[in-house]
């Protein structure tokens, strides 16, 4: 017979975690939920509106456009940054002074605050005084990110690639360093080509760090706010208005707290869902192999 001794003391040990999580996640999230289902005029005048805000948000064509823009942006930068980051990592020197120098050079963009990055590119891309903008003008290309939507897009993408490719590169670099030298030696003895070495030795080792890198880059780019805000302010028109900018306009610009709260929740769920799908797919792909 088993004797079961009930002891509730264990709950006290878990309590600190509950308190911390409550303050860091649950309470703020519940505040947003609170706003998203009520119409609040002042602390004493509020009406429960059910799903009305959600319905309104879901039918808002501005948000639809921002959402599409957001997806295009995130996938564009992933498609550019991941292969580029791998290439940079493969080309970085592995030994001697060159290695530490390359590491520092590659890491510099990561150390610059977002709004500074925006400012740098704002000046860099200006057609009259910016190095990049003036260069484009001089070689005869009519480049102006503040009036031409394509140029604006190009600049925002370029800026993000410049800012965040180093993250992928550093992750891959560390992954590559973990491959023992004998693997390369064995490949040489097997007379394997450079491509075969990449495909069968390096890429499998990079798979794990790449999953992390892609998830980080997706989440981060999906929430991008500061850089386009500083660079273009979402313009020209709404050409570079991404989801978080729409949200801020709604919440602080127009002070529509209810719809903004509903929108925040939808936004949060989208990120959660996409990341989950992405992660499960990749993990399943690895398991199948």
């Amino acid at each position, binding site marked *: 017979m088993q004797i079961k001794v009930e002891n509730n003391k264990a709950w006290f040990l878990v309590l600190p975690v509950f308190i911390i999580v409550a303050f860091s996640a649950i309470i703020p999230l519940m505040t947003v939920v609170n706003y998203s289902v009520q119409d609040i005029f002042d602390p004493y005048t509020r009406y429960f509106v059910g799903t009305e805000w959600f319905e309104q948000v879901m039918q808002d064509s501005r948000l639809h456009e921002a959402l599409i823009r957001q997806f295009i942006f995130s996938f564009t930068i992933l498609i550019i940054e991941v292969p580029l980051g791998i290439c940079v990592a493969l080309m970085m020197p592995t030994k001697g002074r060159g290695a530490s120098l390359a590491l520092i050079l590659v890491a510099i963009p990561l150390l610059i605050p977002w709004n500074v990055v925006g400012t740098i590119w704002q000046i860099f891309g200006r057609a009259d005084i910016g190095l990049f903008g003036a260069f484009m003008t001089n070689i005869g290309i009519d480049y102006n990110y503040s009036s031409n939507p394509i140029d604006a897009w190009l600049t925002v993408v370029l800026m993000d690639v410049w800012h965040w490719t180093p993250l992928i590169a550093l992750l891959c670099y560390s992954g590559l360093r973990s491959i023992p030298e*004998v*693997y390369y030696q064995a490949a*040489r003895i097997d007379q394997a080509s450079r491509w075969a070495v990449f495909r069968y*030795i390096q890429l499998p*080792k990079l798979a794990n760090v790449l999953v992390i890198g892609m998830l980080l880059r997706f989440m981060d780019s999906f929430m991008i706010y500061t850089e386009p805000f500083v660079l273009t302010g979402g313009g020209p028109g709404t050409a570079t208005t991404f989801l978080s900018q729409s949200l801020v306009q709604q919440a602080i610009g127009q002070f529509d707290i209810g719809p903004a709260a509903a929108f925040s929740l939808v936004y949060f769920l989208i990120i959660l869902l996409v990341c989950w799908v992405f992660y499960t797919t990749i993990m399943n792909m690895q398991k199948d*192999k």
Partner: protein
Amino acid sequence: MSLTLQNVSRVVEGETWIDDVNLTLEPGSFNVLLGRTLSGKTTLMRLMAGLDKPTKGKIIMNGVDVTGVPVRERNISMVYQQFINYPNLSVYENIASPLRLAAMDEKEIDRRVRETATMLRIDPFLDRLPLQLSGGQQQRTAMARALVKDSQIVLFDEPLVNLDYKLREELRQELRALFKIRNCIAVYATTEPNEALALGGNTAVLNEGRLLQMGPTALVYHQPKNIVTAEMFSEPPINIVKGRVSEEEVTFDETVHFRLNSDLRGLSPGEYQFGVRASHIGLVPHADDDLELPVRVDLAEISGSETFLHVHNPHFDLVLHLSGVHAYHVDQEIKVYFPTHKLYAFDAQGKMVHSPARMRDQ
């Protein structure tokens, strides 16, 4: 297919890693490179493979100078201490990989892969990934990859070190049997004298980048040319005791005397270093002329079902290799019997000048 190294040296950043090595490996031979860590075994193998170029000297394959020929153009394979396989390819694809790179016909690939896998007893696991196998099976896969293409030279760089004792013995036996029927040159690096003895074939003893002695394994063991070889080629190392030979008797460290016996009678009077194998000293006398020595116990080191007994008398230390497990306490006084007709004698420079008659016959 023979491989000859002529006056090969390799100097890296001013340090001599391989110093003037001359050796010839015959076709169909099994060669053991025996040496301690950092003795240059791996460096020598890399030179044989063509992964590195010698600083001086020539490497000749079948009479053709291949010194500058890169590894890609030589037909060799190598097995490492680590289990090196392509992690995301199945065992089948791993074994097939060298053949695929040689653009071989699919049917022939299939035949060879299955044949090699059966030989190494990994045929039930062909569909698995290497990491889903045990260490021994992973190393078998790596070996299959090395053996599947008909290389002229197969290099083994301490391939069994990372396996457990039982597996090591098993795989070692199989490996030896595998090479009996092949006509390629096998080179096997190891730090363990017992492994060299178990593998047989030829043994080359390496120390600090120099080749000390090369020959049939048993001959090198029984007839070491110098003290270093004798010390390296036995586990525990051979006991060395300083002594003097006069007209009538042998004196160890001025204290222990015994009459010159028939075996040692050939030695001219003078100073020598005498070597006696740890397994030849016993706790009971085996022959009439065994020398009785009172000693004190330092340590009884039990290894498996054997005991390495470290003892000392006031002037020298000895190690005994006893079969069975023996318990002794520190400082215990015991008597050991020193076989005076099983002594090696080395001169002051460490060169062997006398080996026991019975060892010479072998």
